[in-house]
């Protein structure tokens, strides 16, 4: 019976392993979100010289669970003037794209289980980096549609701002990545990590790292670039009208994007799972670097004030973009030589 089943499944092993990996990673990503929320609130508390959530469970660890339950059971309100279909679609797009983008992120060398070589990523595409950009580009639609379908001026403004901001900073992001590509000579994220076995790219390309990081913060709509949801001017931006689980989905999307962005920075600039002599499992080295970057994201949020919208655009187009072009130029000259 079991033999028969295995025989039947044999040609589809690839498919099955792929689906299992997809499920595991998607599950892990969603599971990591409450943890991140807790981390952010605790850290923010410390940064602002207060305690942060500490009542539910030890160190307030129960807080995210109770929050999730609250959000799940909260009534979902849709105002009558909203475009129902798009209103429901928008948060789904945000979460979907953020999870799918993670599909091509590798977090370790391939391992062998039961004679099957299994890569530690869902899909080993040889143009992984472009895939991430493509999918995260699609994520903009979630925010735009949320802004549009709410039929609310603040939401619309938030949606418009976010799309403008994300398009502008995507350029810098892409150009900074291109200089890394020029060094590596490949678009595959695994190859990039292999190329950094000796020295991480951050030492070769410090400028590209700074540019990528800055643009990455803007891409994930995090403070100080969280203009789409600037609460002082726009109530809550594109998700003003959302409540309950749909509201939570936007947050999920944002946090998953943060993880993806940190993973990407790790892979491109920090040497991925290379531990550089430290006695660490590759996967732990990777996770550690991502965790540090996540903390930096949170640190930035509590340190810097939000910048004004026009300054944001000027900064993106007139400072970051020329700088990244310049960096690319210098890099390509060096690569050619």
């Amino acid at each position, binding site marked *: 019976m079991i033999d028969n089943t295995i025989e039947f499944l044999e040609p589809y092993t690839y498919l099955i392993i792929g689906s299992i990996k997809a499920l595991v990673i998607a599950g892990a990503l969603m599971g990591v979100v409450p943890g991140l929320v807790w981390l952010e609130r605790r850290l923010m508390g410390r940064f602002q010289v207060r305690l942060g959530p500490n009542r539910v469970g030890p160190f307030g660890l129960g807080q995210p669970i109770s929050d999730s339950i609250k959000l799940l059971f909260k009534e979902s309100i849709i105002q009558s003037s909203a475009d129902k279909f798009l209103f429901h679609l928008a948060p789904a797009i945000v979460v979907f794209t953020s999870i799918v983008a993670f599909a091509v992120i590798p977090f370790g060398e391939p391992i062998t289980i039961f004679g099957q070589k299994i890569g530690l990523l869902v899909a080993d595409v*040889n143009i992984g980096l*472009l895939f991430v950009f*493509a999918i995260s*580009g699609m994520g903009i*639609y979630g925010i*735009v*549609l949320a*802004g549009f379908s709410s039929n609310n001026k603040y939401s*619309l403004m938030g949606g*418009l701002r976010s799309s403008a901001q994300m398009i502008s900073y995507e350029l810098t992001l892409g150009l900074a990545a291109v200089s890394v590509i020029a060094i590596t000579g490949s678009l595959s994220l695994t190859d990039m990590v292999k190329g950094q076995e000796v020295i991480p790219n951050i030492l070769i390309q410090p400028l590209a790292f700074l540019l990528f990081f800055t643009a990455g913060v803007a891409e994930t709509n995090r403070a100080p670039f969280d203009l789409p949801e600037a609460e002082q001017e726009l109530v809550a931006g594109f998700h003003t009208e959302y409540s309950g689980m749909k509201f939570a989905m936007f947050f999920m999307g944002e946090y998953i994007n943060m993880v993806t962005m940190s993973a990407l920075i790790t892979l491109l600039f920090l040497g991925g799972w290379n531990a550089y002599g430290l006695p660490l499992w590759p996967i732990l080295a990777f996770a550690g670097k991502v965790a540090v970057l996540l903390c930096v994201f949170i640190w930035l949020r509590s340190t810097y004030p939000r910048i004004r919208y026009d300054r944001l655009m000027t900064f993106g187009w007139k400072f970051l973009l020329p700088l990244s072009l310049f960096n690319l130029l210098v890099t390509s000259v060096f690569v050619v030589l």
Partner: protein
Amino acid sequence: MELLIFYPLAGLCVIFALGVVFNKNPIGSAMSLIAMMLGLAGIFVLQQAHFIAILQIIIYAGAIMVLFMFVIMLLNLKGDDAVWKKREKNTLLTVLTGLLIAGVLYKVLEITSAGEFDSPAHVLETFGTVREVGTILFTEFVLPFEVASILLLVAMIGAVVLAKSKVD
């Protein structure tokens, strides 16, 4: 196996393409177009052209359509029937055009169904890779590639001339 993926994808593409035309709401049309582009990217993947597929998503679905949405949102176009009602109906012309296109489609169908389906062409291992596309772009099609930059420059100048705030 490939056909199993191809037909649903192609079918979705057609449905969404129709959605672009028949949707009353401009946003709906735009969304259908995006979905259609994604389907098309899927078909490209099926043809082993991963790079082109990703470019399709980044450029069309990711960049161009966002600008479309931008414009639609800024103009705040809602499903406005008034615009369409102003156009007088020309039934005869509609029917004639329809017949013409039906005839053309029939002819195309006749040709394609008469032809035999070959087995998929054998492609090289390097087919559709970034390197391959880049090589062709920078050797065989280097002139169109460079001329395209003049075209973009001109378009940019034009946009600035027509849109700059100070009228002089």
